[in-house]
């Protein structure tokens, strides 16, 4: 079921800073900040009053802070991609945007201290730092691997690293950290650190690769998926992906309310453009 704390607010931008290829943007959102959990996302209207862009844009919550009477804030890490995200990253402070959130599922937090590996691709690292803090506070050991096409697309703020025991960086072009894809380095890291659970967020191809590695190592893998979303609240059925339920049946599930955080094992990967055979109602 959809996040029961979700609400729509006029959120004021109180900071907007370029960080590498991204913009780190802080929004004053009031009470809903208190409800945000790592993995949740927000949906923002873009383009202003006479915008030709009719749909909201989804962004993972990087961090949220409830400051009691002085109101809550959420922070996002936004890549200027197309019209909507460019508009957003171009807004001056004090601008107000319509923001709906928190939406979707959050990363499951183990009740026992475990050895967790957090893997992020590009801006997919954004929700992982908040997650790392929560895991750390629960006594977990947290290792992190961040990958991107090049150095500028690695988002890893210094303060974010506090909660992390090790941070491995990889880039496709070798401009920072190791040269290669995150998946090339995971098996070794998993083994060396005796990882018990993997959390990931990033492009679908990366999540799929991690799922295979998690499978091979018999690890739980919670990943935040990213499908094109029209509504973000479960009413439009555009954002579906095939997932196997507890009953073994594969259904086209809405990634905005069954996700974005899902169990990597339950996803039928690499089916873009087709419905897997045996899917319910196919």
């Amino acid at each position, binding site marked *: *079921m*959809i996040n*029961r704390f*979700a609400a*729509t607010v006029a959120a004021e931008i109180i900071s907007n800073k370029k960080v590498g290829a991204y913009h780190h943007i802080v929004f004053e959102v009031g009470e809903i900040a208190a409800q945000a959990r790592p993995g949740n996302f927000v949906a923002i*209207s873009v383009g202003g009053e006479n915008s*030709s*862009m*009719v*749909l*909201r844009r989804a962004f993972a919550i990087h961090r949220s802070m409830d400051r009691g009477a002085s109101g809550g804030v959420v922070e996002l890490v936004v890549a200027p991609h197309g019209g909507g995200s460019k508009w957003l990253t171009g807004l001056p402070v004090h601008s107000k945007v*319509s923001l*709906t959130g928190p939406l979707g599922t959050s990363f499951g937090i183990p009740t026992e201290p475990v050895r967790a590996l957090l893997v992020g691709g590009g801006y997919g690292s954004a929700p992982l730092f908040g997650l790392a803090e929560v895991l750390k506070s629960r006594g977990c050991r947290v290792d992190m691997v961040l990958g991107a096409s090049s150095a500028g697309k690695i988002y890893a703020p210094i303060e974010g690293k506090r909660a992390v025991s090790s941070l491995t960086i990889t880039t496709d072009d070798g401009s920072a950290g190791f040269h290669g894809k995150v998946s090339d380095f995971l098996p070794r890291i998993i083994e060396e650190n005796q990882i018990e659970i993997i959390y990931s967020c990033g492009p679908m191809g990366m999540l799929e690769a991690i799922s295979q590695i998690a499978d091979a190592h018999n690890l739980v893998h919670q990943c935040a998926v990213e*499908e*094109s979303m*029209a*509504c*973000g*609240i*479960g*009413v*439009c*059925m*555009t*954002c*579906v*992906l095939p997932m196997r339920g507890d009953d073994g049946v594969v*259904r*086209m599930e809405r990634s905005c*309310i069954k996700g974005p955080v899902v169990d990597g094992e339950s996803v039928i990967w690499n*089916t*873009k*453009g*087709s*419905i897997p055979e045996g*899917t*319910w*109602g*196919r």
Partner: protein
Amino acid sequence: MNFDFSTSLAHAAFKNPIFTASGCAGSGKELAQFFPLHELGAIVTKSIMLKPRSGRATPRMAETPSGMLNSIGLQGPGIDIFLEKDIPWLLDQGANIIVSIAGETVEDYAILAQRLRGVPGISALEVNISCPNVENRGQVFSCDPITAQAAISAVKHNIDSQIPIIAKLSPDVTDIAAIAEVCRTAGADAFALINTLLGMVIDINTMRPKLAGKTGGLSGPAIRPVAVRAIYQVRSRIPDAVILGMGGVTHGRDALELVLAGASGISIGTATFGNPNAAITIKNELEALLIERGFTTFTEAVGYAHREEN
């Protein structure tokens, strides 16, 4: 203020004229988080088919200037689960319900109507005939007077007589009023105007159609002028036509346009994606606009743009 906001579609009454659009409100549960469903005139359910449907592959959507394409392919649980789960839940919420049905064959429509026969708490039936007819090369039912008529007749002969039948038409036809006329002859009590327009977006990077299903349905403000025209045309051709209007309504002023053109009710689709509370805001704005213009009842405004020049 003593403004009467109630409306009716044939013999079904509603406390206000703002409804959800089929396929744009999930099962109702998702929207109920944002406002109580009974605040709307009615919830129009996603078109339900006989069997469970996985729908089309993804990507299923593409944003377009002031609109969007979708190709959901009528994903849904099928009529059995729908009747068992969705209807009772909606009734529990105190919502007024219009059930939308869709078939792949004329017989499907007949069976769906039978299944809905006697189900308590259904205000009206919206018959989505803007979907492909598998018996006729996938041509859309409402694009051909003969199949449009057949689908509506099949429903008419199988549903309780007190349930109004609303024929939902596609704008992708040469003469929408002519299709409305045959549907009326076949037993339609009202018309839902309009369904989406067939469109396509090509991804300039992959250089292929963006949607897995290639084409999709165009909705949103971009199509509003087509919706207003369709409503106005049908109302001109059939002066006593009862119309549930939809197509790009995002603000109260848009709803007013459709009402003046001839709509007795307004369904809100794509606007909800941009703003979960859109239907409620539109309801309030429409009421204020009507009062501002001196109307004392909603129904006075219906089709007001057709009045004689003075």
